[in-house]
Structures are given as C-alpha cells and as structure tokens.
C-alpha cells in the first residue's frame, strides 16, 4: 500500500449477481483532482461506492488515505461523498436536511443550522430557498444541495459521482469553478463523468474505465501514448498543403495523407509521432512554408475514450 495514495484499490472484484461490476481493479491515486471516465455501465459508480464504503468488494481491498473503507465510520470525518442518484428525504427543506446531517457529524443542535447555511452558501444556493421544501427545487438546485451535503463537514477528500449531470451551462461553470477552488484549497477530488469535455476542463489526470476494468490511467497524453496501435492524427494548415504532402509521402512514419479543401489543410496519420514531428519540422523548413496552425485531434480525451470503447483492453 502506497503511503502517498489517497485512493487505493488492490485486486477488487465486485459483481451484482451475474453481472460483473468491477473486474480485478487495482488503482492508486495521489492528491489533486482526478477524473473517472467511462460509458454507462463501465463500473465508475461501483468503484466510487466501494471507495466511499457504500459497497463491499467481493474480493480485494480498498483504502482511503491508508484506512480501509468498509465499516470505518471515522473515515467519514475526512471524506465527502456526492452520490449520483437525484433523491432526497421527503418533506424537508434544504437547510433542515443539512442541519440534520450536521448533527450526525456531532454538531450541537444550535450550531447545525449555521453549518448548513455555510455549506449552502458555498455551493451558491440563495438564502431565499434554504427554507423551501427540497421537492420544489430545480434539478440544478438539487445537484448543488447534493454537493453541499458532501461539503458540510469540510472534508479533505471528495468523491463526486456525476456532479455536473443535469446542470445548465451557467450552473455547470459555477460548479467547475467551485471544484477548482476546492482543489486549490488542498482538497483531493475524484470526479466521475461520462461526458469527456467536463473532465477535460477540470483535470488531465484521468482513469478510464471500460467493462468493469481500468482501461487506462494517468495523464491524458501518457494514455494516448499507450494506444500505439492507433495512428496519431495531425492536422496542419498552411498555404500549400499539396507541396508538403508530396514531401512527406515517402516518409516511412506516415500512414496516410489527406488533403482538405475548406479550410486548406493537410491531415495525416502516423504511428510514431515522436519520430515524425522532427521530420515534419525539417520538411516545413526545407520548403519554406509558413504553418498557420498545427493540431493533433487525437491529443484529447475524446479520441482516447473512443479508441478504448472501440477496443476494450
């Protein structure tokens, strides 16, 4: 077990009857913000619930900051968990709900409403709605309330299961800012989503899950390097793309070349980007071309994710 690890899993299996939720998952994540990605049914929620002590692994072990997570109530002093389900106890107001939970954290009855108010303020819920029944809240307000209950006791570690689901763009932006603020304050976050750009806008440290397994883990660029069977795509905009294509067609690292007309671009693929980029620079300099734009459409999560879903490891 790594001493620096905040989240750690070792050979974890979890099944629901005949369905395998997690299949031999081992993982170690340090401080900071980590994105947990994968399509529906990939095992993200199961993994998070095991890390939050809500589910028991059939086999293997899980730790949070070196402490076993199952049946360890003291661990919840430093962990906040925001579940995926959009459900709240009936008949309570936002403030009443959080006050009751604050009392479960050991706060006195007189102090609990203040703690609840601070958490509600933090997630941007207006004081005017605090006393309203939760049933009258919008989806975005309920999503913020879920986050507020996770932040209530100011934990050092947060596990957030699809926290941005159902939020409008403004609410989404506000929550992204809040999460960035939380990490800046020294907290560690594990955030799941099946929407790639959400995670990409938060962090470059990702865990990709497919079919109950960790398909890839680490920095998005490192993950991309792991997928060497898939050609790396490069898009290059310059005044004479045809001349550049002619110069590169003999290069053994080039797999395919394509000319786009609007805008005029050269699209090429290579299996060995590390070797190819210096050759590309040489060719551009030799031809005296002025490159307007060079991009790699594969150097983002969307591409990595797509590859992994197409070809689970």
């Amino acid at each position, binding site marked *: 077990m790594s001493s620096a690890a905040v989240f750690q899993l070792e050979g974890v299996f979890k099944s629901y009857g005949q369905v395998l939720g997690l299949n031999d998952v081992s993982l170690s994540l340090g401080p900071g913000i980590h994105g947990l990605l994968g399509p529906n049914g990939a095992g993200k*929620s199961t993994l998070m619930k095991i890390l939050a002590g809500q589910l028991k692994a059939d086999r293997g072990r899980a730790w949070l900051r070196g402490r076993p997570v199952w049946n360890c109530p003291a661990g919840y002093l430093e962990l906040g968990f925001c579940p995926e389900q959009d459900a709240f106890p009936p008949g309570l107001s936002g403030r009443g709900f959080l006050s009751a939970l604050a*009392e479960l954290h050991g706060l006195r009855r007189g102090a609990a409403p203040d703690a609840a108010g601070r958490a509600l303020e933090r997630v941007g819920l207006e004081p005017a709605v605090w006393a309203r029944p939760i049933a009258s809240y919008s989806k975005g307000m309920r999503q913020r309330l879920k986050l507020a209950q996770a932040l209530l006791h100011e934990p050092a570690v947060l596990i957030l299961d699809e926290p941005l689901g159902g939020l409008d763009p403004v609410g989404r932006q506000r929550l992204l800012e809040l999460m960035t603020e939380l990490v800046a304050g020294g907290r560690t976050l594990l955030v799941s989503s099946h929407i790639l750009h959400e995670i990409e806008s938060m962090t470059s440290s990702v865990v990709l899950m497919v079919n109950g397994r960790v398909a890839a883990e680490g920095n998005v660029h490192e993950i991309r390097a792991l997928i060497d069977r898939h050609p790396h795509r490069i898009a290059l905009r310059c005044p004479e793309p045809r001349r550049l294509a002619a110069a590169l067609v003999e290069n053994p690292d080039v797999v395919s070349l394509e000319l786009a007309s609007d805008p005029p671009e050269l699209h090429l693929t290579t299996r060995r980007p590390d070797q190819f980029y210096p050759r590309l620079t040489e060719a551009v300099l030799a031809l005296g071309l002025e490159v307007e734009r060079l991009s790699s459409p594969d150097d983002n999560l969307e591409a990595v994710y797509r590859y992994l879903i197409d070809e689970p490891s």
Partner: protein
Amino acid sequence: MPAAAPRIHPRIGAMLRYSLRLQLGSARTVVLGLLHLVPLLLAALWWLSRRFELLEVFSDGRELFGILVMTLYRPTLLLLATVFYGCAVVREEVENKTLTYLLVRPIPKWAIYLGRTLAALVVVLLLLSLSLTLCYAVCALASASGTFQRNLGLLARDLGALSLGALAYTAVFALLSAAFKHPMLIGLALAFGWENLVGHLPWLIGKLTLSHHLRALLSHPEAGGSGLPALLARLLGTPTPPAQAAAVLASVALAALALGAWLFQHREYPIEQ
C-alpha cells in the same frame, strides 16, 4: 465540525430526531393515525347509544374497553403500526435512495439502525398511547361503574403491556427490514398469519408467538375472543405467568434488535439507479 469522532449517544439522538421528523410528516402516520381513531369512534358511539338509550350492549365501559383492547388494539392496530413503521426502518431509506446520506457520516451503522428503530417505536407508542388513553377516558366517562372510572391501574397495565408488545414487534419487523428486500409482505404474513392465527393454538405452538405472551399480560378475561381458535386455547391452553411472558417479550425484542443491528452493520444495501 469536530475533528475527532464525536460521542455516540448524541449522534443516536440526532438520528432519532431526524427519523422522527420524517416519520411524523409521512403519509403513513396520517393513515395509521386515522385508523387509531376507530376505537375512539366506537367508544363514542357506545356512549351516545347509552345516553339516548338506543342500544343496550355491554354492561359497562370496562367490558367495552376490554373488548376494544383485545380485538382492535392488540391484534390489529398494534400489529399494523409496528409492521408499517418497523418494516420501514431500513427499506424506506433504500427505496427512497436516501440511505447513502446517512451511511457517509461518522456514525457506526448499528447506531443508525438503533436510532431509526427507536424513532419507529416512539411513533408507534405515541399513536397507541394517545388512542388508548382517550378510548379509556370515553369508556370511563360513559361507564356507570364508579370503580372502573377510578381504576387507572387497568389503563396503566394495558399501556405497559402494549408498549412491551410494541417494542418486541417493532424490533422483529425492523429485523425483517434489515434482512429482506421486501419485508412488508413477510411482515404482514407474520403479523396476520402467524401471530393472529397460530397464536391462538394450544400447547407449545401457541407459545411460539409473541401474541400469546402479550395476551398473558393484558388483563381482560371478559374479552377472551371468540371462534374455534380461542375456544381451543381456553380449553387446552396453559396460561403463561405474566412475569414469564414479559421476560419472553423483552428477550425477543433485545435479540431482534441486536441481530438487526449486526445485520445492518455487516450487509451492504445497494441503491438501484
């Protein structure tokens, strides 16, 4: 927030208050509250019929009170209330998908279970004691017998016996709630099949029910019930001494509470998405 794990008792108290608040505001409480008015209505009707000399049934309030206790409170209202509140202890939170919010707090699971079971018991006792006391008052006011009016010991004994029964039944149904996915069906079968039918059978088999022991604590021989099972019980049954019956009920309650808390502590309750 406190940095160290806070003491357990205030947190059980917090769990109790939170659950009570949810239970008291629930539709279940409204329905069961209305059902607990039924014996009151019957007593009031009897009072009116006596006053206006419409119908001559039951010689005095004591007889009516005994019949209401033995035919409505014990075999119907007590069982209904404890089934509905007891079976909700765990399952309601699972079905509402709100159990997660409780399980991510620095409080042992057994304490959550205990707090919720206590809340269920408090609501059952509130309903029962309010209804029974008012029913007694109506019967006593309308009764011609002055001794019944002064015999508050009868009410106290019935309240005590029904409270002990409520404790045992709530603990058993809460255990079902911790053990099974659909505890309500099993609870209803147990309450109105096993308890109400088998409880009247003679010899040992009858003693295997809680209702047998509860009947031994309730002091209404004038309302011994009717029908074949009751007749058999009177002919062949060996009565259990009240002290023994109370000990059995208390032991069952403690055992069910302990087992339920242990189960809740060690089982997982997946929330279906």
